[in-house]
């Protein structure tokens, strides 16, 4: 089990994400620079939070064309796990690896708060049965307002692609959506930060179970090894 954390110029959640997998779950983890062409056999590719390429034009719009994205696309097409957190989620939407888009928060404020999130029944590993009905994770973003057209939203709901919803909507997201997966169930994205909720000194440690649930969606045996 190998984890690759992608570093874009402007990523700032890369070290948090690294430690979530390396220290939190004890898994072999390394950084991959956005100009690299290969992922070196990673099982899960994590796209961290931050402001890749300054978020110029739109969040994730430039990062989508970084050289490493071709390898990430191929990895996803082969069924490999891809996990975007915050800016990483925005990049995956821009790249078309996840449906929809993220726009400016309806309140126009940058929101940096702890959020209660309801866990939706999405996969066997990512479900209220596995994670509990509600978890707490911090958010920290100005553009987390999830948007998708009506047909797209119907498909998300019908395929149980919604992972997490805000108990109190902080950004105007349609359906209070905080995180989704693709239809195939190997690409995950969410605005909340599990990478800021796993240490003893964090306000919540629910991030560990969330990261484990993403991994367990493809590697069910992991549940026992890292529990």
């Amino acid at each position: 089990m190998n984890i690759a954390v992608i570093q874009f110029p402007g990523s700032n959640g890369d070290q948090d994400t690294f430690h979530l997998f390396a220290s939190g779950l004890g898994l072999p983890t390394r950084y991959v620079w956005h100009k690299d062409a290969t992922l070196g056999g990673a099982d899960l590719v994590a796209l961290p939070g931050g402001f890749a390429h300054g978020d110029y034009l739109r969040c994730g719009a430039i990062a989508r064309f970084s050289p490493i994205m071709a390898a990430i696309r191929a990895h996803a097409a082969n069924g490999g796990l891809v996990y975007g957190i915050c800016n990483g989620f925005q990049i995956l939407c821009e790249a078309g690896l996840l449906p929809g888009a993220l726009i400016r928060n309806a309140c126009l404020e940058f929101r940096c708060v702890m959020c209660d999130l309801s866990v939706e029944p999405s996969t066997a590993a990512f479900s209220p049965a596995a994670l509990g009905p509600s978890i707490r994770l911090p958010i920290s973003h100005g553009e987390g307002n999830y948007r998708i057209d009506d047909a797209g939203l119907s498909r998300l709901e019908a395929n149980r692609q919604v992972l997490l919803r805000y108990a109190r909507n902080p950004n105007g997201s349609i359906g209070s959506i905080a995180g989704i997966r693709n239809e195939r169930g190997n690409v995950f994205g969410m605005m909340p930060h599990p990478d800021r909720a796993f240490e003893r000194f964090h306000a919540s440690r629910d991030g560990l179970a969330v990261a484990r649930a993403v991994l367990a969606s493809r590697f069910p045996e992991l549940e026992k090894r890292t529990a």
Partner: protein
Amino acid sequence: MKINVFVTPKKNVLDPQGAAVGHALESLGFGGLKGVRVGKLIELEVDAADTPDFRARLDGVCRDLLSNPVIEDFRYEIVKGG
């Protein structure tokens, strides 16, 4: 040649910035306001001829990079004598 690309939020997509600017305009007493949408203008300077092939490439970059079709529309004008 010079090209002005206009990117605007889709009509049916919430535009929080437009709403905020609208509130400010109302508080300035700007009467009769029926709507505000905030978009962006991207000015390109290109050394190329205006051919069907060039238009196809321009449409491509407007769709793939300069706008996000999920939330935005684009249009452009080629500035005469630019």
